[in-house]
């Protein structure tokens, strides 16, 4: 009996060691960004690899803000993501409601069609999308970045799944009172769908904020360039040798530009993970 107890203790201790190792491995790159960003260039390359800077400097941050249009890129990113979330709320909620709550021929087909597109890589549609945007002379505008992003079937599908769980009786009562579908949607479905909508918004935020491929194709100037693309231009403008001199600056930039997403994650950690989980299980 005692032996069994001991082996259990050892097992648990082993699990803790493992857990701590995993946490260290995953945190290390983030902490290294933080550490490097406060070091002077000499210290970065002194070969000591100290985690806590000896001479604490803010020069990297000063240079990041004054030398690069981070503010403009951040503004563009926020506007683009804001517009995508706003538009997709309208574009996703209405069809999800219609598919889930109105009986008509072809629902099954439309849902199937939607689900089938979820797995198609968006890079594959880039050639035609680019031609459309170019022929509308929208290149290098917010519209060019935003519009092709409003067709993410996952968002509609999640809402559709959620709406189906709301009992039909509620809306039937409302219908008897003479309410149309807009009324039912506003008075019954939306108030009940807070969690589902927040999941959709978080998913849209993550995909749109991180979207790199499409904005890379259609933005050329700081007028519309989003953060991921801006960061890439900094990186590709350095040659191999000069980049290695600038890591303090680059890490400061990395840290500054990840603040919006990190803040949101820290504030709504549980919702975030819930959103990703739901999209995984249902998608």
């Amino acid at each position: 009996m005692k032996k069994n107890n001991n082996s259990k203790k050892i097992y648990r201790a082993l699990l803790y060691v493992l857990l701590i190792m995993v946490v260290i491995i995953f945190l290390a790159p983030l902490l290294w960004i933080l550490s490097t960003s406060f070091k002077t260039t000499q210290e970065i390359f002194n070969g000591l690899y100290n985690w806590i800077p000896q001479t604490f400097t803010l020069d990297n941050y000063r240079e990041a803000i004054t030398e690069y249009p981070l503010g403009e890129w951040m503004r563009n990113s926020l506007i683009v993501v804001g517009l995508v979330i706003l538009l997709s709320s309208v574009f996703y909620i209405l069809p999800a409601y219609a598919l889930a709550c109105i009986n008509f021929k072809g629902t099954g087909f439309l849902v199937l069609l939607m689900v089938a597109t979820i797995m198609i890589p968006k890079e594959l549609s880039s050639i035609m999308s680019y031609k459309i945007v170019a022929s509308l002379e929208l290149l290098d505008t917010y519209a060019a970045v935003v519009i092709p992003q409003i067709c993410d079937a996952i968002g509609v599908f999640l809402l559709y799944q959620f709406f189906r769980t709301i009992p039909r009786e509620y809306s039937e009562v409302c219908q008897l009172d003479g309410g149309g579908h807009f009324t039912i949607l506003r008075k019954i479905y939306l108030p009940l769908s807070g969690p589902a909508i927040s999941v959709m918004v978080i998913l849209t935020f993550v995909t749109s904020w991180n979207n790199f491929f499409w904005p890379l194709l259609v933005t050329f100037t700081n007028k519309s360039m989003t953060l991921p693309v801006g960061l890439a231009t900094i990186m590709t403008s350095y040659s191999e040798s000069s980049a290695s001199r600038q890591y303090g600056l680059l890490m400061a930039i990395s840290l500054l530009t990840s603040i919006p997403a990190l803040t949101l994650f820290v504030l709504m950690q549980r919702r975030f993970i819930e959103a990703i989980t739901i999209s995984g299980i249902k998608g």
Partner: protein
Amino acid sequence: MARNSIWNKRRKKELRFLVLSLTPFFAMLFIFKIFPIFANFYYSLRDIEVQTQGVFVGLKNYQTLVRDPLFYKVLRNTFTYLLYVGPINIIFGFLLALLLNQKLKGTTFSRAVIFVPYILMTTLVGITFRWILDGNSGLLNHYLSYLGIEPIYWLTKSSTAMLGIAIASIWWTIGYNTVIYLAALQGVPREYLEAASIDGAGRIKRLTKITIPCVKNTTFFVVLTTVIYSMQVFGQVYVMTSGGPNYSTLTFVQYLYIKAFREFKLGYAATIGVVLFLIILAMSIAIFWMFGDHDSLKAKWLGKRRAKFEKK
């Protein structure tokens, strides 16, 4: 009579609502998701530019593709990436979830730590790992030197560049699989595990006989998404190596990007797109087939349709 006209009016109103609510989204879906796939097939038969529809050239683009040595390199590189990242992301994603599913202190915090890289921007991950994998002063080489390993010039040597990109990608994305597996593990019935434990089944046996079969559907999803996302790898490569050195990290999507948007050979790029689409389609079908859930899937769809039919 009067009743009938009210019904008609309502039906009309409903129809208007349907059209109004479905059209915008499905129009977008068709224009930016569905047609472009067919358009790729069409463009691949043409010599085409951004502003024009070009001229029909038959299978010329495909003939060029099969003779294009870079194309084979791209194929090999993309599959190499998949081989590095796929198994690790799936197996270790699952093992991490098992660890986090134990009753230990700090698992909520650990889950957040493992997941947080996933919300960072690709480009940012690329920049960070260019620094960590730096040959002369990178952090990884420093710690490897304790193990007696000579400095590795990760991203500047063709033999290790793809491995370097894979390391960054694993750090970035494994948390996604872990979080999804974790949710699935919480759905494994406790009674099964307890019953097996009473019957004298050890940890390993419980894992292989109960837990893994119970999360089969999740494994299917995780395998499918990991494979599809790996075939699309782009951002990390773009920032970390831009395909080099010596094309050793040039991947499918990046080749498509270069042909379409640097050289503006849209017809040829569309051909690459068609091939990538077919490869992904074939792999998805293979994965569906491998997990062999045809019967239950069919039952699910038929069941759904029957339920709807009965509702009517």
